[in-house]
């Protein structure tokens, strides 16, 4: 039994350490401002823009898009910065030299961010209930929760790709911000995807959160999850693909940097 429990314990311990390494240095006030204040302000801003542009009768649709897209804050600025932070702290070489494989190193790092992302959305939804007439029927909450979990998983897996790219880049901040803005624009959170040029629309379908936003809007309009399982499976599948790409990139880049002796010099 202990043989089964130990890896799980280790998995959670790694996840907790990774999360603490990002936020433990902050006071509670700083943590709330970074983790909740900035994302919620962004949601509020774009929802108010939508209120003006699309009218108050459609506000909930756009509010939902902007609430779900909040998970990218954890994915991009949390998970996405983990490896470059290790590089800055001088602990990357210890991590690479450890017996754990890439998957074991990277997956736990997404764990608490997944739940943190959902918590941010949940607080966003409370704001929506107070100010933007967001009222989800009680029977839809479970399905909504499942979709948010899938959304958060897929976004965090996407964050792993960014984290791996960060190993080979000195301009991670630039990458993080370009990617976060792209998610705002390409996921359909703020305007219909059909407005995008035709050649960009397939890219939109390859982004995390696009399907989750559609699903959450459908659930809000009363469509049961069972009618859109292909979207849910699509989001989870996308998350798995992102995870494989992220892990492979990590392996390739670390191998290459070890061979050329530039692990911490990119």
């Amino acid at each position, binding site marked *: 039994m202990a043989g089964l429990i130990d890896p799980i314990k280790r998995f959670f311990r790694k996840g907790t350490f990774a999360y603490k390494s990002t936020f433990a240095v902050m006071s509670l006030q700083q943590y709330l401002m970074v983790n909740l204040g900035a994302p919620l302000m962004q949601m509020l801003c774009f929802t108010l823009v939508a209120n003006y542009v699309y009218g108050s009768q459609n506000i909930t649709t756009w509010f939902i898009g902007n609430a779900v897209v909040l998970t990218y804050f954890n994915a991009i600025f949390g998970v996405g910065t983990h490896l470059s932070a290790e590089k800055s702290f001088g602990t990357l070489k210890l991590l690479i030299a450890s017996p754990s494989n890439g998957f074991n190193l990277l997956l736990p790092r997404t764990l608490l961010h997944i739940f943190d992302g959902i918590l941010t959305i949940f607080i966003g939804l409370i704001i929506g209930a107070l100010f933007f007439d967001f009222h989800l029927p009680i029977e839809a909450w479970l399905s909504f929760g499942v979709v948010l979990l899938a959304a958060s998983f897929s976004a965090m897996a996407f964050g792993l790709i960014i984290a791996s790219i960060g190993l080979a880049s000195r301009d991670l901040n630039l990458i993080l*911000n370009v990617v976060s803005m792209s998610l705002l624009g390409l996921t359909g959170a703020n305007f219909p995807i059909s407005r995008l040029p035709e050649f960009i629309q397939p890219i939109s379908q390859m982004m995390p959160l696009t399907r989750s936003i559609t699903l959450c809007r459908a659930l809000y309009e009363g469509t049961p999850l069972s009618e859109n399982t292909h979207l849910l499976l699509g989001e989870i599948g996308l998350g798995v693909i992102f995870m494989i790409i992220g892990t492979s990139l990590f392996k390739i880049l670390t191998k290459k940097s070890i061979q050329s002796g530039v692990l911490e010099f990119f």
Partner: protein
Amino acid sequence: MSTINAVIASASQQFKTSIGRPMFRFCVIGQPILFGLILGMIYLEKSNIDFTLFAVFGSGLSTFWSSICFSSASDIHRERWYGTLETIYSAPVGFKWIVLGKIIGNSIWGVFSIGLSFSVVVLLFQRQIIIGNLSLLLVGLFLMTLSLIAIGYLFAALFTLSRNARIMMNFMEYPVYILCGILFPLEQLPLLIRSFAYVLSPTWAVKIIHLAVSGSSLFSAINYIVGLVVITIIYGVLAVYFFEKIDVKCRVEATLEVY
């Protein structure tokens, strides 16, 4: 004269070096393009006036504000990290003048980002851009630049003794977009919040730009022009006052680099 030379030299040095930072490069090049595209898509089916106000000028003004948040407000913090804060602090010309030069250097890039965002949105969306009163628009943009320099100066002073500068600069970005009517009309907000918005100078600048776009005369915008000038002067005076206070505090407590 030596003070003016120091301000110009500091502005010139900041103009050349700030663009070397990836985050600032994103603020003045990446964000105007991406924000312009997103706002252009959102306002695609609105009237030409709305498109001009919020997609064209909204994206420009918001990126200018972001460049203030991610540079001017945190430049002191950065100098502290570089270990150069003591050196510029003890320069004979005066710390506050060197900081003013830095803010001016950053703001020149801010003006560039407005131009970039304007060009990108106009070229890609091919919409008719309405500018009813060009001279009023130029007056508005000029005063807005001065006002943002004053805000950046005030933030630089306030954040000299703060460890929260980096956190604050991330948090300040969107509240100003919301409160100042940069991305949507201020009238969307409840009356109580709207009255608070007039404490912030971008609100006045945005009003002048809106009047310029809708073709109002210089005379009809005079209240907003006076309001913007007064509030800019207040920011400037407050900034100088805080710099004086901080100077005394740092020398008495010897804590300049500890924060």
